[in-house]
């Protein structure tokens, strides 16, 4: 696989307040370096993760979406992460059919003490997405600049 040169992926992260956000904090306090590709959003629990957010992020320029929760069995809200497992699994099955590679949407676990593991997750995902290349969903599939091969169609709806 190629590393796609200078391409720097943008990964939108959703971190649960209790484990993974703290793992990211710990990676910080321990000064563990990882690529600046991740831009994270704090949610209370991975069980809050709404599939629409993943779709929205992918459509609007993210090259990948990372959700990190507490380890199964360790959820602060007892079993929110089990719901995340179910929703992300079904979402990924659906996205696969829509042509979004598995590596672009990942669910991982990191306890509050796993700063190292958190940094590794970001590193690995960055490398995987770099290998896949930019997603560019909006330009390629919504605005149709790539897929709409029929030139005649363009001026019609551009003019609307």
């Amino acid at each position, binding site marked *: 696989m190629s590393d796609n040169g200078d391409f720097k992926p943008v990964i939108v992260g959703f971190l649960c307040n209790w484990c993974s956000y703290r793992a990211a*904090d710990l990676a*910080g306090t321990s000064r563990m*370096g990882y690529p600046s590709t991740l831009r994270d959003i704090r949610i209370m629990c991975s069980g*809050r993760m709404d599939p629409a957010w993943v779709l929205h992020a992918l459509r609007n320029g*993210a090259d990948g979406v990372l959700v990190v929760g507490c380890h199964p069995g360790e959820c*602060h809200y007892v079993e929110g992460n089990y719901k995340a497992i179910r929703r992300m699994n079904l979402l990924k099955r659906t996205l696969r059919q829509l042509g979004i590679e598995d590596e672009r949407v990942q669910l991982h676990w990191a306890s509050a003490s796993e700063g190292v593991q958190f*940094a590794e997750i970001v590193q690995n995902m960055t490398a995987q997405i770099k290998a896949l290349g930019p997603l560019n969903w909006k330009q390629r599939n919504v605005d149709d600049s790539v897929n709409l091969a029929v030139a005649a169609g363009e001026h019609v709806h551009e003019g609307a």
Partner: protein
Amino acid sequence: MAEERVGVYICHCGHNIAGTVDVEAVAEWAADLPNVEVSRHYEFMCSSLGQELVEEDIKTLGLTRVVVAACSPHMHERTFRGACERAGLNPYLFEMANIREHASWVHAVDKEGATEKAKALVSAAVHRVVHHTPLETMKVPVEPTTMVVGGGIAGIQAALELADAGYKVIMVEREPSIGGHMAQLDKTFPTLDCSACILTPKMFDVGAHPNITMLTYSEVEAVEGYVGNFVVTVRQKARKVITDKCTGCGTCWEKCPIRVVDDVYEAGLGYRKAIYRPFPQAVPKYPVIDVESCTYYKTGKCRACQMFCPTEAIDFDQQDEVVDYKVGNVILATGYEQFDARRIPEYGYGRLANVFTSLEFERMVNATGPTGGKIMLRDGVTEPESVAIIHCVGSRDRRYNQYCSAVCCMYSLKFAHLVKERTGAEVYNFYMDIRTPAKGYEEFYHRLLEEGVRFVRGRVAKVTDAARGPGEEGKLIIQCEDTLIGKQRRIPVDMVVLSAGMEPRHDAEEIGHLFGISCSVDGFFIERHPKLDPMATMTDGIYVAGVCQGPKDIPATVAQGAGAAARVLGVISQGEVALEPIRAEIDEEHCSGCRICNTMCPYSAIDYIEELQVSRVNPALCKGCGTCVAACPSQVITGAHYSYDQVMAQIDGILIDVNRPVTAEAEVAAD
């Protein structure tokens, strides 16, 4: 929304942020974001001057929203919410962007990337904050009674602290007596104090304290409510003994014809009767009938205890009692179980008679134990001439428990000392590392070296009775590599003691579930913060003390018990607690009653209202995780402070530069 006036503050945090992130560029860039009224950068936002800057702007510029980009919200969210509140702005109209832990500290080698990311995070906060709504915390009074679950030394310490401070305590203990594992021990390291001598007075105090209600032979069945207002359902198992009549004279167990191995107090090394008091100093002093073993419950005959009881205290028909208790806080001190050494077959426990576990050995050396404190082989008569003590049994072993049990090195040294002192036998310690990190511990190790105890550095590969030649006949042979020599050794001994580690209670996870807290990978309860808040848990009002939170020795357990009590006293003295307003709410008018959310809530906060065919959230029970919000297929459940729209806006903000690189724009702005 369009009229919001947002103030943005970028913190330098000295060099911590400004050394990596170009804070000036970020502030300048943020000024052009939609709705931003003012964008500043400042050296230390958390300082009183930094906070005043925010307060001043709210007052003079009429800010309606505030964004501070600084450290983790876990560090200073509360600080800046306070600043907003002081200036008359609802504290929930504030949002924090974490550009220290999540940017400058992790991207120190990539200043450009760190700056770019800081901009994205600030933009996310700005986009999000305009969707915030004012929220009010809910204040609820605190019930001053505390429940302590577990009557070992951790629970005893916590209960006494609270009771002495003048508050009621309900102590729940599963066994017939309080005392826990400490009551089984003979001597305690490193001082070699007699365990009973220091524990018994405390047990007595618990039993006699006017502020303590002691529920022994009892288990928690259900927990409802929230901090300050829990209702805990406790099942008091039937002792089959009327405690009001019983004098603890002991006639019943003397007369009882059924003898069974005592797996709990005697760790399987001794016997008790079917009606028994676990040990002489038990608190309370009343016996219980073990209905599994008692002849009466099998055949309807015998009744020896009843016939001989001078006070007619035996009641074969006594039933369990289930009672609800209202408490404000709970301290879990449920302790540990010893690692089952049978799980390591190569050490032969259960197969080779003279392999003992450490708890068996504790009972053996205890003056009140089955051998009266004499160290002897399983035959009960032969004194060993050589003893091997194997460290790290079931600990530091990925096949079982990865963690170090923290106490085995020290108690193994204690055993070695006791063997030397009482038998003069040759003692070998087989260890990977000797860990003695506390007051007086290393000195104790040195004392053992002086006493001539032998130390072999090597984890034992196996214990066998298969002799290779005459020198090994009739012995247990320890086979290991002496790693300091680099050679295999076979050392014949008479007795082997396995220093088995500590494990979470087998039902720790269920207990955690009852109280709404979780266990870590190793099975111990998770504390709120491993360093700064080791007594509290993520569930308000639930505290942990002792080994149930992680392996520790008696001094650390006592300290944590007292610490947990102090944390509870703090809550009680405030009189009321504020509940975070982060909760879910269902728009009943548009709820279609599909009931998909009904099974989502781990706290059973969602009720289905049959007559209206809609679901409803009980705000007092809701903890705000949002899993029902995410589940709602018609999107009519709103999660306060983490709403769908707020996060959507945050995504828009976080991706603002993807089509137009921020760095390029920053250059333009800087020009």
